[in-house]
């Protein structure tokens, strides 16, 4: 059976070279097209696998702690794992990653640290995306004063020294048990997430605004308006679905950035408390002893590196797969040869299909 690849978008199905000739040809949904392109990107798939592995590690940290290494409490101190100077001892059969600087099981700390990093990353990114998308859509759609106000607000936020402000805010709110804003912001994971989200939304808002400025002039928007749709409906029912691809791509790139931001805050001592395992915190705690206790920096560092790399790879893969004009990257000669062959086959098929109706219509 012949196939035709149809890179369709919201603007309707692609018009084939010969509509009549495509009768009986199986069409593909956007999802199928996306997946077909994405799965060709082996590196992105590896990234996806690693993310899955990290999520699995985060979810199963308790199980591992209790049933595998038999150190159920991540905050349990094992003083036998500190030498007479209070320095941690290295990996052994009971402590696979050795001890952290406080004499706790580093393996369990790292597993639970994955939980912290992912929670902060997803939550902070969620805040960021929600604020960014809503304001970006509004700015692009309404234009005028609304756009000016939101865009200048973005400029202001973007011009702020984010890390310094985050340090100040986390310090101010984290130093009071009652938190800030009448208890709305309290120390801990949520505070870190709020800080990240509140200072990073303009990046995605700008991208969304630019897209909306273009989309609002399209015919389907005019069509919706002519049918009596209100602004809210047009913004969120007509325009927003067309922004899913860039939002997804950008979100996957924000997540690793936020993981690193959380790690940075924890490294600076103002992130999560010591009883909440965090890779950044572990790295900070090891900073003065890594030359005599390499494992305290190596394992959290490797996990942090792998996780951020994995999200970045997946983000790149998504961007390529969702971009109808782009080609997923080809790694290695074998892949390039495969693609060349596939392209030739597709061209041949298309040629055959175009030629067939011409023959049927018959030349005398």
């Amino acid at each position: 059976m012949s196939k035709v690849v149809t890179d369709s978008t919201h603007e309707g199905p692609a018009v084939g070279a010969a509509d009549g000739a495509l009768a009986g040809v199986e069409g593909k949904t956007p999802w199928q097209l996306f997946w077909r392109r994405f799965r060709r990107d082996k590196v992105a798939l590896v990234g996806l696998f690693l993310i899955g592995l990290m999520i699995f590690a985060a979810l199963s940290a308790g199980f591992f702690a209790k049933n595998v290494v038999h150190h159920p409490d991540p905050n349990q101190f094992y003083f036998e794992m500190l030498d007479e100077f209070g320095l941690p001892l290295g990996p052994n059969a009971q402590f696979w990653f050795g001890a952290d600087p406080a004499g706790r099981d580093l393996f369990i700390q790292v597993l639970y640290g994955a939980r912290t990093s992912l929670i902060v990353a997803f939550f902070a990114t969620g805040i960021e995306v929600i604020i960014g998308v809503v304001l970006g859509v509004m700015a692009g759609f309404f234009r005028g004063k609304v756009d000016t106000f939101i865009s200048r607000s973005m400029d202001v936020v973007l011009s702020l020294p984010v890390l310094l402000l985050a340090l100040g805010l986390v310090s101010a709110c984290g130093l009071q048990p009652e938190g800030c804003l009448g208890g709305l912001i309290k120390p801990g994971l949520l505070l870190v997430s709020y800080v990240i989200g509140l200072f990073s939304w303009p990046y995605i808002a700008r991208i969304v605004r630019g897209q909306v400025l273009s989309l609002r002039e399209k015919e389907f928007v005019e069509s919706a308006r002519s049918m009596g749709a209100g602004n809210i409906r047009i913004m969120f029912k007509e325009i927003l679905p067309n922004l899913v691809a860039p939002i997804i791509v950008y979100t996957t790139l924000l997540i690793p950035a936020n993981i690193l931001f959380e790690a940075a805050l924890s490294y600076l001592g103002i992130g999560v408390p010591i009883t909440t395992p965090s890779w950044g915190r572990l790295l900070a705690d090891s900073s003065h002893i890594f030359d005599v206790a390499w494992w305290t920096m190596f394992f959290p560092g490797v996990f942090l590196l792998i996780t951020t790399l994995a999200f970045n790879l997946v983000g790149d893969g998504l961007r390529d797969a969702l971009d109808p004009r782009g080609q997923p990257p080809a790694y290695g000669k074998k892949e390039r040869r495969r693609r060349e062959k596939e392209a030739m086959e597709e061209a041949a098929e298309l040629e055959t299909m175009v030629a067939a109706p011409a023959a049927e219509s018959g030349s005398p």
Partner: protein
Amino acid sequence: MRRYAKWLALVAVLALTAAACGGDDEGGETGPTGATGETGAEFQQGGTLNVWMDTDVTAAFDPQKEYFQVSFAFYRCCLLRTLLSYNGKGPDEQGDQLFPDLAASEPTVSDDELTWTFTLKQGIHYAPPLQDVEITAQDFIRAMMREATPEVAAGYGFYYSAIEGFDDYSAGKADTISGMTAVDDYTLEVKVTEPTGDLGYRMAMPAAAPIPPNPDDPEAPLGVAEGHNDDYGRFLVSSGPYMYEGSEAMDFSLPVKDQTPAAGYEPNKTLSLVRNPSWVESGQDDLRPAYLDAISVEICPGCDQEVAEKKVAADEIDHIFANGVSAANARMFSQDPNLQDQYFVEPGSGNYYIAMNVAVPPFDDVHVRKAVNFAVNKEGWRRLGGGETFGEIAGYFTPPGLLAGLLEGYDPYATPNSQGADTPEGLELAKAEMAQSKYDTDQDGICDAPECKAVLSVGVVGRVAEASDALIAQNLAAIGVELDVNSFDNSTAYNKIFDPKNQIPISTFGGWLQDYPDAFTFYFFPMYGPNILDAYNTNYSMAGADPDQLEKYGYEVTEVDQALDEKIEECIATTGEERTACWADADKVLMEQVVPIVPLIFSNVEQIISSRVANYTYSLFDNQMAYDQVALASGA
């Protein structure tokens, strides 16, 4: 503010030791003289000792203001002589004893113990530019007048309130301190309002060091310090074996605003000390051999001490002043055969403790406080802080050196290996005590009252401190006391517990350091009810608070045990061995009856030196290497 200054001293000396210190005493020698110190040996004269500090003193060496052990050490060894002083040695060589310094002999005390008479050595002159000015009795009165002058904002005038007329002068009610009289140039008489057994120690503090008159303005009440309320430290005229480099260029004949300080001290940059020629010429110092020609101190705020420690190993720096040693480098020094002789663990003069507020539930119940004492894993706490070199496990409050060993082995809350509730026996002991508490309604040894839930605990941030707080929280949770641990930066944390109105139930970073070798300094502020202050209060436990104080600060508890106050008042009036025994008894009252604290450790002090140092000596008074005792190795 004066209490705050004391706290700064604690933070700098004790907390920094806690931060990441480590080491063991297998490699280095413990004691007043290390591997390179041979008592009685002849040492090379001369040379320059290179010293490194990561923080400057707190008041630019103003002797009336500095309330900081680091500056005390520089004064004692090098810059200022006092009527009585210390020999710069350790506990086994009478390092905590007073000896006549500028005084010719021990003071004589009247039968009623209210009049102390000091006779001065003759022929002792100040350093240049006042090398022609002899030290006389009036100079000590001048120093006390400056300490009492409100505009100076001195550091610890409270120690001299016992001198008759001191407070009146301070309040502007008198032109002189009536209790201090220069009978003649070489006889000083001091009258106190009540028997003050430790007056000798107080007169050995830097604030009591003589201030010379101004030869060009003999009527100036504060002598050469006149007009230098904010910066006398930079114009300090030395009486010790060393002086600021360039001191001779100071010109006190000029108007104050035109005077320039000695070049040898640039705050936060350098301190350069050179020999005081007047000290050499007088030849009358039995306490300080002062082998070195000069001491060069690099002050490097914000610099990485671990880098400096490596430089000590490489002989690029001879000594790091004030701080402990990082765990990694302590291990390196103690295990490297080439460095073992350059690493020392010395007994300090401070302690660490957990303060429980006896006026806040659930710690208003003595059984809860005793249960907490049983529950805390002191050995674990010490291990987190750096292991055995961090200090000795404490079973009581006062450092043993101040009690002549009278409480050796005393620990009313002993648990196996001092591991508290982390051992079954310790947990049982803690539960048994908790079961007697009104907050354990079913008497199962687990506190079940709401007062035991979310108990606010204040600690400080930092890897070691936060891990230690987490350990304490785990230990207390085992008996049902659930802490809501809040870690703050040092300044914020202290501001919270300094204010009695905050009613902080428990704070985990208590620590105290002696001002001089008498237990009085451990009780008068942290444990004495009448000294509870509105601000900068260091009696975090509200021990001995009276009903009026409790009401004033808004406590619901109306009464707390005041037995310790009575004991402290009894001890203050005693002297000699009776005084020491009295303080030991006071410690028992504190630990068994009042129980406002959990003593954790008596701190040690770690020192590393370069191989150039030939006569390492540790001064117990100021917990530092004694620069007046050390020499450089031949060829160094």
